[in-house]
């Protein structure tokens, strides 16, 4: 079967899907959405790429090591932001005590935004990893 239609549509759609996914992540604090949802959307765009162009194409865009690094860094960033509260003399995950030259509520909002980004980075790498590693068997048969 000639995959030219699927490949063309994928090539046009993937940037818009990714843009929408990043929009969901970044707008998590002000509108419905957040890190989990946006991360899944971005990961799904890479899965679409893998379906249309083959798993090695997605693998070459975001390699195994990069995905593991994104996974770990996302989790670590969340816990690290929590630890910043302790470093500033407060409680774990107490954001508004972190000393920035801004009012406490603004600092709190910024930290919640950063947490959303950390969750998004973690989830988008994980979704793609799960897909690529479970399809590895069928890829070998070709």
């Amino acid at each position: 079967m000639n995959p030219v239609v699927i490949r063309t549509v994928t090539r046009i759609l993937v940037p818009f899907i990714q843009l929408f996914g990043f929009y969901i992540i970044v707008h998590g604090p002000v509108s419905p959405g957040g890190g989990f949802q946006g991360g899944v959307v971005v990961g799904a765009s890479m899965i679409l790429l893998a379906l249309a162009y083959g798993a090695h194409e997605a693998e070459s865009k975001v390699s195994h090591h990069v995905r593991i690094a994104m996974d770990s860094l996302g989790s670590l960033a969340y816990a690290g932001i929590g630890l910043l509260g302790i470093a500033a003399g407060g409680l774990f995950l107490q954001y508004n005590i972190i000393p920035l030259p801004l009012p406490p509520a603004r600092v709190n909002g910024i930290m919640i935004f950063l947490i959303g980004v950390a969750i998004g980075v973690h989830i988008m790498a994980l979704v793609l990893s799960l897909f690529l590693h479970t399809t590895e068997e069928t890829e070998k048969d070709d």
Partner: protein
Amino acid sequence: MNKLNHLLVVIVLLAIGVMMSIAVLEMPEFADPDAPIHRHVAPRYMAMSYQETGVPNMVTAILADYRGYDTLGELTVIFAGGVAVLSILGGKRKK
């Protein structure tokens, strides 16, 4: 012996079913504003979440601030699951 086991299973299941039905009948009306879940911490969240967290989206405020530990645990569970999948299936990728 086997029939006795079946009878026992039926009795236990019936007892659990009756208990579940009683519990469901005791639940508050759907969308009842006086239900306990709407009177405990929800009014505080609706009134104070913007001043306390600086985030207009109430769901994000609860998820990332009031229930920050919960979300961190959630992320850890997903991370552990991903690492388990990668360690079981990911070894062959190095060629």
